[in-house]
């Protein structure tokens, strides 16, 4: 019998792992288990073009339906892995089925952090993570409606931008003193605050939501001691790694399933990749990344390791966000102590912020500035020192810095 692989999770990382396992020559049986009703699909468009209604559902799917059969992968959907018996190398599914594995890949992803305040369970309170979430939100996401968005991160702000475009009355409540505080520099936060306000979105900073009130459904939001009328609420306050299966089975977990630079867990038969993991990053620190890049690259490395071709995962992380006509592209991981260098004028709506650490570029945030992003990413990977004056000088094309 050839050895078999079971993949728990059917998201971006799962699809990538399947593709990479086959590309690397693994020819044993593969079974992929997904909790949702759908085969692997792209999540990024959910809060952007798909919510706007400009992107039909069929386009979300990462592969053609026929792919899984052709790739020799049994896809089990609408099914949750509820138990992991490491001694027996067996996974138990919610329908009672037991799957034996020789090698197991956990790509269980993350789930939304839920709001805990009074009224959080009222009808009209939405989250955005899955196709089903967006389809539910769509029924109320209508021109003229008042939407209260809890959380000024990527999800909240992308929904705010789509809402403003669709003619909703949008208010964003952010508990921190600036937008996207966890993800971008204060310079970017200030720029995006003014862009959203210009589009008619009300931004309430330093304002946590204390309660949601209404008779059976959302009627108002209480935030910062004030009452705001609202017809619906969208909560975007981050995600939590889905690590319960691993934790219950005794695998190391620490706000994420702990893996090494080859996506290996402490069990020689089990790997993990994507949003659900905590791994040692290229800078030597343990971290958790929630992004497409990590799903793809870590899954590739897991697949390599599973077929015995270990390769150290040290790709530069990258992220993007579309809000209005602004394309934000970020590479690298910034720290508050980085020296910031501005290239271009934010007023031109085309600029970049470089983060320098030990005289080398550690991160770049580029708004409508693809060269700055692409070359910045390369500079981060190279780790080469570069003068801040050079980076800031618009008369020197980025290409010359590569």
């Amino acid at each position: 019998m050839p050895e078999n692989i079971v993949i728990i999770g059917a998201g971006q990382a799962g699809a990538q792992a399947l593709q990479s396992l086959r590309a690397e020559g693994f020819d044993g049986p593969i079974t992929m288990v997904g909790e949702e009703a759908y085969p692997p699909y792209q999540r990024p468009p959910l809060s952007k073009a798909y919510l706007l209604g400009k992107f039909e559902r069929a386009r979300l799917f990462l592969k053609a339906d026929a792919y899984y059969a052709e790739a020799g992968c049994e896809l089990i959907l609408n099914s949750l892995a509820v138990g992991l018996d490491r001694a027996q190398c067996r996974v138990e599914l919610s329908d009672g089925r037991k799957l034996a594995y020789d090698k197991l890949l956990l790509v269980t992803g993350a789930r939304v952090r839920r709001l805990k305040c009074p009224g959080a369970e009222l009808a009209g309170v939405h989250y955005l993570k899955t196709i089903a979430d967006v389809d539910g939100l769509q029924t109320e996401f209508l021109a003229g409606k008042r939407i209260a968005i809890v959380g000024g991160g990527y999800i909240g702000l992308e929904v705010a931008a789509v809402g403003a475009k669709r003619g909703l009355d949008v208010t964003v409540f952010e508990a921190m003193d600036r937008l996207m505080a966890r993800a971008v520099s204060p310079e970017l936060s200030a720029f995006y605050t003014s862009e959203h306000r210009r589009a008619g979105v009300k931004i309430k900073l330093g304002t946590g939501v204390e309660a949601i009130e209404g008779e059976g459904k959302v009627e108002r939001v209480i935030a910062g001691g004030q009452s705001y009328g609202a017809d619906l609420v969208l909560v975007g306050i981050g995600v939590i790694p889905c690590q319960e299966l691993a934790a219950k089975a005794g695998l190391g977990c620490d706000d994420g399933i702990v893996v090494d630079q080859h996506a290996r867990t402490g069990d020689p038969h089990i790997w993990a990749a994507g949003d659900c993991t905590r791994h040692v990053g290229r800078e030597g620190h343990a971290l958790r990344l929630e992004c497409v890049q990590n799903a793809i690259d870590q899954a590739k490395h897991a697949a390599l390791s599973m077929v015995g071709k270990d390769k150290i995962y040290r790709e530069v992380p990258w992220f993007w966000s579309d809000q209005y006509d602004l394309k934000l592209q970020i590479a690298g991981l910034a720290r508050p102590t980085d020296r910031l260098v501005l290239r271009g004028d934010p007023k031109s709506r085309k600029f970049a912020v470089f983060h320098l650490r030990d005289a080398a570029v550690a991160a770049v945030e580029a708004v409508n500035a693809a060269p700055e992003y692409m070359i910045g990413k390369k500079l981060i990977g190279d780790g080469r020192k570069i003068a801040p004056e050079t980076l800031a000088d618009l008369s020197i094309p980025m290409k010359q810095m590569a």
Partner: protein
Amino acid sequence: MSVFSQPAKYKVIYIEAGGQSHTVEVAEGWSLMEGAVKHLIPGIDADCGGACACATCQVYVAPGWEAKLPPISEMEATMLDFAPDVRPNSRLSCQLRMRAELDGIVLNLPKAQHV
């Protein structure tokens, strides 16, 4: 869904760097990147799924077809600058939408999408 609501489909010929040719149908309005990915054509990575954020869906447009394509946006041009082995007929296939005039378009694929 009635057959009348199905979008029209047109032919695209993708040719891998090794010469292997794939003729597939792509629905009107879909990108030529999506056409490749959904039909399992090897040679298009499209890591970002079509957001023009990764430059991993480069194609070489066969002679005669370039004029029928929309002009290259500044974003596409700058992203393309950093793709491997860029040629004058290079495009990012995520930025090309299928329509009737492109029926039969021939796209050659690069050896690799990552530098």
